[in-house]
C-alpha cells in the first residue's frame, strides 16, 4: 500500500507538478537513472527540498529511498511521525548521538542499517534548514556513515532557489523558477570521516558555482 502510494505520488504526480507548475528545473538528473544505491547529499533551505529530491528518483528506486529527517521535529507527535514515515518514507533520527546514560537509538547505526537493507538515503548534512545561499558547517554523520560503507557513493546536489518557493517559517507555496543540480556520484574508499565531510562540502559548493 505504502509502496503504491509512493509510486503514484512521487515520480508521476509530484515530479510533474514541481516541473510544470512550481518551476523546478532538474539539471543532470541522468546520474540517478541507473537506480544504484547511493546517498544523496544536498544543501537545505526548505521543506520542499526533500520532496523535490524524492521526486527526482527513478521510478523503481522511489520506495527504496529514505529521506533522513530530524526525529525531534517530525516525530514530535505520533500523528506527525506516522504521516512523515508514510508519505515521505522518512527515516527519523536523533540529531545527536546518545551520550552515556541516554537510551535513544544511535543515528549512525540507524542509517547504516537502512543502507544494509538496500535503501538509498537523502541526507542534508547541514542538519537544519539554513538561509538561502549560505552553507552552514556540515555535521559529521555523513562521514561516519560513508567511512563504514565505502562501497556506496554519495551524489552531491545543489538546490538553488528552492527557499523562495517555501521559505522557512512560511506556509504559502508560490511558484518560482529554481534549479536542482546533480553532480557525479563520488566514492570515498580509504578516507576517514573528516576527509569525507570535507569532500562532500567541496562537491556541493562546486555545483553552486560560487567557489
Amino acid at each position, binding site marked *: 500500500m505504502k509502496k503504491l502510494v509512493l509510486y503514484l505520488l512521487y515520480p508521476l504526480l509530484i515530479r510533474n507538478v514541481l516541473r510544470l507548475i512550481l518551476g523546478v528545473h532538474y539539471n543532470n538528473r541522468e546520474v540517478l537513472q541507473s537506480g544504484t544505491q547511493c546517498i544523496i547529499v544536498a544543501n537545505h533551505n526548505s521543506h520542499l527540498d526533500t520532496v523535490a529530491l524524492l521526486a527526482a528518483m527513478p521510478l523503481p528506486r522511489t520506495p527504496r529511498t529514505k529521506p533522513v529527517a530530524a526525529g525531534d521535529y517530525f516525530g514530535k507527535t505520533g500523528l506527525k511521525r506516522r504521516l512523515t514515515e508514510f508519505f515521505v518514507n522518512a527515516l527519523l533520527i536523533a540529531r545527536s548521538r546518545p551520550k552515556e546514560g541516554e537510551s535513544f537509538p544511535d543515528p549512525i547505526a540507524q542509517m547504516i542499517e537502512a543502507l544494509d537493507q538496500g535503501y538509498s538515503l537523502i541526507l542534508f548534512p547541514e542538519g537544519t534548514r539554513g538561509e538561502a545561499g549560505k552553507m552552514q558547517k556540515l555535521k559529521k554523520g555523513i562521514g561516519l556513515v560513508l567511512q563504514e560503507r565505502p562501497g556506496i557513493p554519495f551524489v552531491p546536489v545543489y538546490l538553488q532557489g528552492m527557499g523562495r518557493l517555501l521559505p522557512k517559517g512560511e506556509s504559502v507555496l508560490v511558484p518560482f523558477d529554481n534549479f536542482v543540480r546533480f553532480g557525479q556520484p563520488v566514492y570515498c574508499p580509504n578516507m576517514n570521516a573528516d576527509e569525507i565531510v570535507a569532500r562532500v562540502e567541496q562537491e556541493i559548493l562546486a555545483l553552486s558555482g*560560487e567557489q
Partner: protein
Amino acid sequence: MEILRLGAFIEQDEILKIIALIFGILIFATALFWGWGFLRPEANLSELKMRTRSWWVMAIIFVTATLVNPLISYAAIAFLSFVALRELLSISKNVRPADRRILFWCYLAVPVQYYLAYKGHYSLFLIFIPIFMHLWLPFMLVIRGVTEDVSRSMSVLPSQLMLTVFGISHLAYLLSLPDIPGFSLGGRGLLLFVVFITQMNDVFQFTWGKLFGRHKILPTVSPNKTWEGFIGGIFTSTLMGYYLRFLTPFTETEALVVSFCVACAGFIGDVVISAIKRDIGKKDTGDVIPGHGGFLDRIDSLAMTSPVFFHIAYNLYYLNNS
C-alpha cells in the same frame, strides 16, 4: 460540443495550406542551419538553432491543439503566459521578499483572464488586468504593511502582468470571436496569421540584419539590432502578410497595413524584453538564476503583436457583429 473537429476542419484547405507551409519552412530552416553549421562550424548559430527547436515544439502543440479541440489551445496559451510570468517574476530584481504572497494573486490572474477570453466577455476581458489588477495588487501590497520600496512593487507587478498575461491572452480571445459572414476560417485563421507573421518577422529582422546590418538602431539595448534589419524585416513581413491574407477577412490594403503594424509591434516587444533583461543582467548578476530566458525570449514579440493585431481586426470586422 464536438470533441473531434478533424473532419470539418480538413475541408478548410486554407488552414491545411498554412500548416503545410509552416512545416515546410521548419524543415527548410532546420536543414539550412544544420548544413550551415556543418559547412562553417565557426559560425555561431546556437541562437537560431534554439529558436527553430522551440518553433517545432510550438508548431506541433499548436497544430494538434487546433486540430483536436480548441479548449487545448486556450489551455496551452494560458500555460505559456503562466510560465513566462513565472520566469519574469523569478529573474526580476524588483520583487521584494515581502511581495511573495502578493505574487499568488498575480498567478491567480492567469486563469481568470483566460476564462474571460474563453467565455468571450469582451469588456471584462479588457478591464480585468489594466483596471482591476492595477487596483487590487497595490491594495494587497498595502495590507502587507511593508512600505519600503512599495511604490516600485505597485508599478512593477501589474506591468509584468500586462506584458506576460494581458498581451498574450489576446491570442486566446481570437478563438472566441464570433463567425462573421463571408469568412469561414474565424479565429483560428486570425491566430495562425498573427503568430506566423510575428515569428517570421523575428527571423526576417535577424536575417536582414545579419546580411546587410551596418547602422545600429538601439546600441545600448540590443547591440545586434540594426536599421537595415528593422526596415528589411518590416518590408518582408508586410509583403508576407499581403500574401497570407486568405487567412483573414482583410482586403488587400488592410492586410498591408495590419502586417506593417504587427511587424513594428514585434520589434517593440523584442526590444522591451531585451531592455528588461539587460537591466536585470547589469544589477547583481550573482543573484540572478542562470540558464534563464527561454520562454520570455519566445513570447517577447507576441506580447505586443497580439493586442495590436486583435484590436485592429476587432475594430474593422467584429465591432458590429458581436
